[in-house]
């Protein structure tokens, strides 16, 4: 290769590098923009939301006088209570859901029994029926069972999660059978094997499944709208959308609520980033 073509290639490479970096940066910032604008507006009075929009200026996206008044107002509003409800419902879902799903995954992966194929099909079928689609008939059943406007009613549908079972089963299948044999020799029963061998080895996939359960509950909208809208049991997203529908909206408080409802799952995803990506790739690549 002559030196002339080599310099032209390396020049093209540098240009390409700069071009790709600039393009990547622009797209990234564009995606950040709506959230950033929401954040900045949550730091100023509701009346100022539309003040800096015509024309666009640096103050549209920055404020020199940030205040936490909107967040303070949030604490005493219905949205504050609704956010606590969301946290409570999601936490309980993760704890009980993980127990239920990991036990099922263990039975499917480790215990050889007749009919495990059939059970697995039931799991897959229930997973193929989209929950939101059957939310209306389920809400009808829950009305008959007096579960409407109760925490139990909000939590129950989030517990058995086909995706989480599938995820955990995939991981459990990779645990070597030798360990089970060794556990048996030490006198462990099935419960002991599950509790002492499988669970401790599966912390990463348990975190991944926990995230799946958490996000299902945190992001749900149809179900809490159908099953829990009284003042005591209302969840964050419903309370926020009620606020938006009001005639006289305080945009500052609304944006503060939006930020809180976003930052909580965001912090959890970032904190468990590694496991989140891992669970994403496991489900995607099967």
């Amino acid at each position, binding site marked *: 290769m002559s030196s002339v073509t080599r310099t032209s290639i390396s020049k093209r490479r540098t240009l390409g*590098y700069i071009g*790709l*970096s600039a393009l*990547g*940066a622009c*797209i*990234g910032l564009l*995606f*950040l923009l*709506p*959230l950033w604008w929401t954040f900045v507006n949550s730091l100023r009075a509701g009346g100022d*939301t539309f003040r800096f*929009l015509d024309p666009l200026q640096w103050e549209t996206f920055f404020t020199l006088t940030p205040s936490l008044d909107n967040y303070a107002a949030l604490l005493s509003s219905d949205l504050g209570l609704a956010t606590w409800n969301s946290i409570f419902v999601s936490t309980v879902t993760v704890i009980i859901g993980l*127990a*239920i799903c990991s*036990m*099922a995954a263990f*039975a*499917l992966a480790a215990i050889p*029994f007749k009919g495990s194929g059939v059970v697995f099909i*039931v*799991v897959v*079928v*229930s997973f193929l*029926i*989209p929950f*939101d*689609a*059957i939310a*209306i*008939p*389920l809400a*009808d*059943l829950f009305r008959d069972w007096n579960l409407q406007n109760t925490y139990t009613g909000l939590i129950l*549908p989030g517990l*058995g999660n*086909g995706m989480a079972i599938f995820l955990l089963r995939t991981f459990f299948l990779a645990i070597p059978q030798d360990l089970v044999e060794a556990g048996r020799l030490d006198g462990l029963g099935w419960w002991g094997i*599950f509790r002492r061998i499988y669970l401790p080895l599966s912390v990463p996939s348990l975190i991944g499944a926990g995230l799946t359960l958490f996000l299902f509950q*945190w*992001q749900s*909208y*149809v179900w809490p709208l159908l099953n829990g809208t009284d003042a005591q049991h209302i969840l*964050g*997203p419903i309370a*926020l*959308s009620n*606020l*938006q529908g009001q005639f006289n909206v305080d945009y500052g408080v*609304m944006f503060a609520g*939006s930020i809180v409802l*976003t*930052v909580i*799952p965001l912090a959890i*995803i970032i904190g468990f980033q590694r496991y989140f*990506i891992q669970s*994403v*790739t496991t489900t*995607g*690549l*099967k």
Partner: protein
Amino acid sequence: MSPSQLRDRPPTAEGQAPTGRPARRRRPPSTIVVAFAFLAPALISLVVLRIAPAAVALSESLFRESFLRGGTVFVGLENYADLFGNADFNNALLVTLVFSAIVNPLQIGVSFLLAVLYTRRAAGSKIWRSLVVLPIAVPPAVSAVVWSVIYRPDGLGNSFLALLGLPEQPFLSSPQQSLASIMVLLSWIGVGYWMLFLIAGINDVPTELYEAASIDGASAWRKLWSVTFPLVRRPLAFVLVADTVSNFLIFAPVQILTKGGPSGSTNLLMYDIYTRAYTLGDLNKAQAEVIILVLLTLVVVAVQFRLLRSSDNA
């Protein structure tokens, strides 16, 4: 392996099969009992909370409330026939199909291109990538609320258009733009999520393949089309199916922003079911519509899997 299972084995399999266990030890429960004890909570919740409501919807969709006799009467498939003769339902079905036909290729195409962009060597690639992923934490309802302000006539959307010298747009209040506006806010939270799967797939492509293609003098586009694309087909297939299903179930933005309007232009099936059940109070027809939606989802998933399988064999 449990002792009870070993007992089933012919004793010749091993020299000393444990048939002669000390009789005083309590016989452990058979594996099938243990297995179902582990499975029971999950199975009960899946059967009662997923499969039973679908069955209820199916059976109720075959009945109709009777004012003459009180209670309900069996009407066979009449509810379905009525739905397909109903202009609002047909419009909702059409809107849903048009919406799916546009939003799915759009989201997957954009996430694929972004995945390619962010796996190239470039300054700050990881940082910019995480900014694209950031909105996946935003719940759909929150996204709808935030964009309701962006789409206001005096909102951020029109300020941007003004910056580019473009005229003010009505966005959500125009029948021509409302569905597209909803697609934009959904893609904002969706694209980064699907991109994660595709990035994982692209990172699995061995770099030697690219080097080999470079030596053969392949252009960047050619490499993208002939090397990357075929090798990420598996994650792409998953994304295609999962994205299609999730887009059939869009509800929050419609309910929060447009209520299906203006003039039915955003009346997606999920919202049509909701209004039919609660605003119109026709629960039996709403159940029939639930069944249609579930079947539609299952058919699309099955067709896509079939197509992908046959292209795998080719």
